[in-house]
């Protein structure tokens, strides 16, 4: 997995390329926590180039959303493919996150 990080106004966009699983989930967690530590409150994770996610990856997303909401911000998601959409629906995490079809719509939603 690799992460591409960019900024759009006050939103930090993290693009996940590859699988988000137990062996690499800490990279994403630390990167977003570092941004939060630096004052960022709005984070968008874009899964357009992502592979599959396991329960550890889902857990990291829950953890990051909690942290950002505690700080008065939010974590939003975009571009889930059909497999990822199925995972979020199976676990009912689709009710915990605001998920947009496109990056643009996600940015507009903040």
């Amino acid at each position, binding site marked *: 997995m690799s992460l591409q990080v960019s900024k759009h106004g006050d939103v930090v966009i993290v693009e996940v390329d590859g*699988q988000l*699983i*137990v*062996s690499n989930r800490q990279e994403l967690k630390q990167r977003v926590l570092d941004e939060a530590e630096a004052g960022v409150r709005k984070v968008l994770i874009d899964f357009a180039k992502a*592979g*599959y*996610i*396991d*329960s*550890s990856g*889902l*857990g*990291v997303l*829950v*953890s990051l959303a*909690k942290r950002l909401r505690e700080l008065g911000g939010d974590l939003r998601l975009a571009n889930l493919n*059909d*497999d990822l959409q*199925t*995972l979020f629906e*199976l*676990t*009912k*995490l689709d*009710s*915990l996150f605001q998920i947009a079809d496109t990056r643009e719509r996600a940015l507009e939603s903040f």
Partner: protein
Amino acid sequence: MASNAALDIRVPSDVQQIAGIVAQVVRRCRECRFAGRQLTLNVPVALTEALSNAILRGNGDSAGKHVRVRADVTELRLVLEVEDEGDGFDLEACTLDPTTVENRSREDGRGLFLMRSLMDRVERFRGDGNVVRLTLVRR
């Protein structure tokens, strides 16, 4: 039943091994013409969960231990066995329902649920070690 694409490997108990093992099993399933969704979702997620459980819980994240993975793939079905050196666990008792309102915001507790949601059958038993067997019918 004759195996079209069998795999039997023993690897160090390390989460960095997971991606390579998953890739090998998915390749064998692709050779046996499993459906695209099974190759991109069911098999990789369920096997990753089984390996992660074996390495982190069964073997207690101990680098000196090993995990054995057997995959028997035919054009009818995939049977996977993941064996660790732990004492085993009660599959029913350990499976949480992460969809309830109180569990939905938990950071953990989705692994066994996903395994059981994405496979046709999940069993746990004692072999030489603690074995989790996953069965998926080809579609």
